[in-house]
């Protein structure tokens, strides 16, 4: 084949420029700024900065509440992934059985996606309201006096429930389209080869969903880490007290409420490195086991 060499042109750079500017402005610059300020002790009132080396890192991570937050973040993330992926998969499988070949329904179900995230968060707050929340009523009926905002455990449950619930529609849509992408003839071949529908699902359908699941796992971890900020903030109403907070929310609290810019920056740098490491682990270990057809 003949290789075509295009002359130097500014067009590609021009077309890329908006994206590159956004990346530079909203990611690279703040990240660099965070990295720089994590090595300084900032004076919140007079704007003087003193270079303190790794002191911020040592101070932040050795604080007692840092360990607690890290622990909660791990529990929070794993719970959200398991709950929202599990429920979404179950829903998608049942929807798929009904939807095979009926696209009008499919379009109708996709509308779930259109519910705005903040609205979903607010609905969650209402559901767990101590006086009028139906979920609190339900817990009370089970003999569990829920005190969201007061009890550490109860708040954690409510946060996880709302955050997982908000993520279900996204997972559902991806799982559903993944399921619909599996050719009918494969399911039929499996039906001839295996009498148990459950076994068919775990041996044929689920492995074929692996690329979707892997993608969603990455998305959900990122979601649990960063995008749950809004939900947590709405639920805690900015007053953490004795309640559980994730590392990201702690960065916000320490930086903007505690005015400890250096410590907060150090924490966000640690988070950045953690997420980077996590991503590498995911792609190295899990993706190897994922089959892309």
């Amino acid at each position, binding site marked *: 084949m003949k290789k075509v060499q295009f002359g130097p042109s500014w067009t590609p750079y021009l077309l890329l420029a908006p994206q590159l500017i956004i990346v530079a402005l909203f990611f690279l610059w703040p990240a660099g700024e965070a990295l720089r300020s994590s090595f300084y002790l900032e004076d919140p009132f007079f704007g003087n900065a003193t270079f303190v080396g790794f002191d911020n890192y040592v101070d932040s991570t050795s604080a007692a509440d840092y360990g607690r937050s890290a622990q909660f973040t791990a529990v929070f993330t794993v719970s959200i992934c398991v709950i929202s992926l599990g429920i979404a998969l179950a829903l998608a499988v049942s929807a798929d059985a009904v939807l095979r070949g009926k696209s009008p329904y499919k379009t109708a179900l996709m509308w779930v996606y259109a519910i705005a995230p903040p609205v979903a968060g607010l609905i969650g707050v209402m559901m767990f309201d101590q006086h009028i929340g139906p979920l609190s009523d339900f817990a009370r009926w089970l003999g569990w006096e829920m005190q969201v905002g007061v009890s550490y455990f109860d708040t954690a449950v409510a946060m996880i429930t709302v955050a997982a619930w908000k993520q279900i529609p996204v997972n559902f849509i991806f799982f559903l389209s993944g399921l619909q992408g599996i*050719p009918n*003839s*494969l399911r*039929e*071949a*499996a*039906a*001839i*080869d*295996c*009498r*148990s529908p459950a*076994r068919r699902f775990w*041996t*044929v359908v689920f*492995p*074929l969903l*692996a690329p979707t699941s892997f993608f969603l796992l990455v998305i959900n971890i990122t979601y649990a880490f960063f995008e749950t900020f809004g939900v947590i903030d709405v639920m805690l109403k900015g007053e953490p007290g004795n309640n559980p907070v994730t590392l990201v929310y702690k960065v916000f609290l320490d930086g903007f409420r505690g005015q400890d810019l250096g410590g907060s920056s150090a924490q966000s740098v640690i988070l950045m490195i953690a997420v980077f490491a996590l991503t590498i682990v995911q792609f190295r270990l899990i993706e190897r086991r994922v*089959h892309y*057809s």
Partner: protein
Amino acid sequence: MTVTLDAAANAAANAAVNAPASAPANAPVIAAAAAPAASAEPTLVIDGAVKRYPNGAVAVRGVTIEVGQGELVVFVGPSGCGKSTLLRMVAGLEDITEGEIRIAGRRVNEVEPAERDIAMVFQNYALYPHMTVRQNLAYGLKNRGTDKAEIARKVAEAAAMLQIEDFLDRKPSQLSGGQRQRVAMGRCIVRDPSLFLFDEPLSNLDARLRTQMRLEIRKLQRRLKVSAIYVTHDQVEAMTLADRIVVLNGGQVEQVGAPSEVYARPASTFVAAFIGAPAMNLIPAELAGGALRIGAEAVPFAAPPAGMAPGFVTLGLRPEKARVVPQAERAGGLPFTLDAVEELGASRLLHGRAAGADVVTAADAALPIPQGPLALHADPADLHFFDAVTGTRL
């Protein structure tokens, strides 16, 4: 009498089967297909099967067919004739609205596909993409709780038979079309079923490979002596593979018979036009006063068989049975204007018009193309008469 050769790729095999019914022994494929003993209980009985969809559409309208032990029956017909639906009803992938299907004497209407003792080759092979060839073959056996050593033995045996031993540890995506086809067959063989179902398995292959795989399927099925249903829209595949052909049209059986029989005595104009390539010429004609009138003019073309009621008929004439001769050479016949010539190598097709109808004739390519005013001749014994309205054979 000249039996002219058919379209290039399938010429040899087709001609062998296309030999007239009077001499079936000429065809080696048919000779090998000795019919099973009539007393044996049929492997499959389809008894008045009807498929009606909830929206009222009817795909299969009361079909009754038996498949004997070791017999290969081909369902053939144009798309939408219900052949695939019927096959899927046998497999258990479609419900049976009415009627009954029995496999080895057992009613299977309510039986799960996995328990019907069948194996199926799909059009796109439907191999499990995340499993190796070995796992693909073993999957069905594993689910039935077959013992590990037994699975290994069966997989090795099937792989050897299909010459896929070298690919056992590859994934389907690393195989060519022909190799995938073999794996799909292997998946059926290891199950050791009482019935093989083939759903247009060759339609994704190129022409050369198709011819080769066709022959392999035939040999394999003979060797394993397992009954089989093979669905295709390709009449050449039907002719070459089948012990018996079932021609379907609009969800109904048009004709059931051995390939030679279906070719020699098509039961209707539909079958006549569908089986054989190029298709049989169908010419409107009229029987009046014991003579045959074609087009506007009464032509002493051929005397109709005795005892046929006067009226309008459709006259059928196979291209390879028609001869185009210069009028100067032989008197009579139907005036023929030559429009186009198609060279097929061994034979050549002469397209033209006779008595207002389009007519195709096939002639030996060794003979010169006839020149000058031409006429169409045919042996009266080679003419088929069909009812002009219903299309059924008279």
